């Protein structure tokens, strides 16, 4: 058997998260260890309250684990200061939330370029707008560039979120239930876009979903139950959807 010598992009070792509430302690996830490679599409599935969102937040450095290590490119990120984390997140991660609507006062292009109001990559000065337009067009929204969010459908809004996530050229995209409020056609569009991005651009994308059909498109499916990783399957475990 030939061992893979490639170092994983993202690694979690014995991670646990305990929330301390007034009513007592609640263990959201425990004993989770996993590794993800660049260019991998990973789905997190499990019932509500199984710890999918908590795990995504910890992977994406939006939350810190109570126990365990989280490493990206071999560097521990769970111990970084808040200030360094902000910079780290800008460079390495992008997020797509289930209900993170675009800002109402900005049009599609402005929403896509929104991250650059807060930081600007030095090597991309002057090309950002063109790149934003290109990404929006690649997502089939070329005719909506200057439309306001209230003129868009649910599927189009989610595409704007994907465009905004891509514009910063992250290493990892984390998507929490990105297809929850979409019809099947749009669900397929979003997940297949994810798959194409991992294949073509080498991005690592982790998304959570209740929808096993969509999870099946992923390279790996992680099953969570009561905060623990109960099963890891290859994506082809589920029937491959047809368009």
């Amino acid at each position, binding site marked *: 058997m030939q061992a893979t010598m490639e170092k994983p992009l993202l690694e979690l070792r014995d991670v646990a998260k305990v929330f301390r509430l007034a009513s007592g302690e609640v263990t959201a996830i425990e004993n989770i260890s996993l590794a993800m490679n660049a260019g991998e599409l990973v789905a997190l599935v499990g019932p509500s309250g199984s710890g999918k969102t908590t795990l995504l937040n910890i992977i994406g450095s939006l939350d810190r684990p109570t126990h365990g290590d989280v490493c990206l490119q071999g560097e521990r990120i769970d111990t970084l200061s808040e200030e360094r984390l902000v910079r780290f997140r800008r460079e390495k991660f992008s997020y797509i939330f289930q209900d993170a609507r675009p800002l109402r006062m900005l049009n599609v292009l402005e929403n896509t*370029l929104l991250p650059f109001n807060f930081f600007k990559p030095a090597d991309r000065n002057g090309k950002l707008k063109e790149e934003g337009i290109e990404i929006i067009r690649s997502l089939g929204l070329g005719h909506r560039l200057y439309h306001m969010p209230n003129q868009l459908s649910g599927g189009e809004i989610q595409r704007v979120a994907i465009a905004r996530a891509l514009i910063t050229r992250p290493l990892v995209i984390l998507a929490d239930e990105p297809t929850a409020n979409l019809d099947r056609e749009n669900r397929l569009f979003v997940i297949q876009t994810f798959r194409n991005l991992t294949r073509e651009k080498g991005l690592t994308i982790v998304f959570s979903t209740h929808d096993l059909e969509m999870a099946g498109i992923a390279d790996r499916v992680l099953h969570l139950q009561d905060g623990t990783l109960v099963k890891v399957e290859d994506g082809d475990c589920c029937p491959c959807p047809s368009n």
Partner: protein
Amino acid sequence: MKILVLSLLDLVRRPRKNLMLVLAIVIAVALLTSLSIVSTSANTTILEVISKTGHTLTVRPVITERSADDITSDTLTTSEVVFGKYIPEHIIPEIERSYDKAIKAGWERKGGLVARPGIGEINIEPPTWAPRLYGKTSLDGNPVIVTGVDFYKEYFVRFWWDLASGEWPTDATRIRQAGENEAFIGGVLSQARGIGAGDTVTVNGTPFKVMGVLQETNSADDYMLFIPIRAAQRMFDKAGYVSLLSVRAMCPNCPVGDAMVELNKTITGITATSQLDIAGVQFEFFNMLYNFLLAVVTATIFVAVLSIFNVVTGSLYARTREIGLLKAIGASRCQVLRIFLYEHFALGFTSGAVGYLVGIGMAIVLNAFLDIGAILRVDSHLLWRALALGILCSVLAVFVPALKLTRIKITETFRTQWET
């Protein structure tokens, strides 16, 4: 697009969202602005009176309760004009002596008359005493106040007098020797009766040629016909009596207040009043009124700021998801805070400017409806103060809730049920 533009876009594209906030600040700023304009203008108007008449002392016959009763309905007493009570001319020298003594004593106390080596004694020009005799009669069948004056002295004491038409005699001798049948007429009376310079009026059977029409002075003078005092004394059978003496002190910062006290203390049957003191009382009254209203308005603003604070807090919590999103895409706490501070700076600036304009309008209305009669002046500093107040109210109201909200974890912003 910069953070500032992002903030402004939010304001421009969602104008109704902040309407209540703007309204509260506009009202607060407008109240303070109008109050400030009216009180400052009123005080300035009083100060102008002080500067104009500050060194003038007026001596009138004393009106006791009994003598006030003696004044029949046929006589008239206003704050400026007294009929039916007179000062005998033979006591005028005594009044002048008392006045001179008090002025000299006042100056000595101030050190003004103390001879210093090489400087010598400061010369004080003698004051000018202008007598008046008021009488009521009719002119072409209509009642009129006829005031007998010494034209030369009157012109000197009331140095703010000016002519709307006609002309003063050009030399002092000519004024002093103004003809027994020459007259001047107040501006309002001239308009009311259609009498102009060059006309001849007949009063109690005596014709007078109107030499000039006085410009309006907003005083009782506007309603009077001025004739030589000797003619008036004969006309009203009051030879040897005057109704009033005006004194113009001829030294800067003359201690006329001391002279007023001395005259009231030593001469019986007269009462001396300094215009400076009258204006001073008005000045104090306005200041007291201003301070009272300022306290009321400040309390109102405090309540308004609390309301703004509540409105802003509610509005910010409704934007929790937006804050989470901004932080998730790379905004630092400081940058998120700046968005809200810029927004509220712009809101406060706009509200302050609108409040300033509304305040000017309110001041005009207040001045007219409350008959304050001040000449309104808008100090340029007031605009800066209005803008500063608007910005302060708005930014202070947002600062604490925004600071608190920017501390919230990104994960919590999406877990909560707050809606945008």
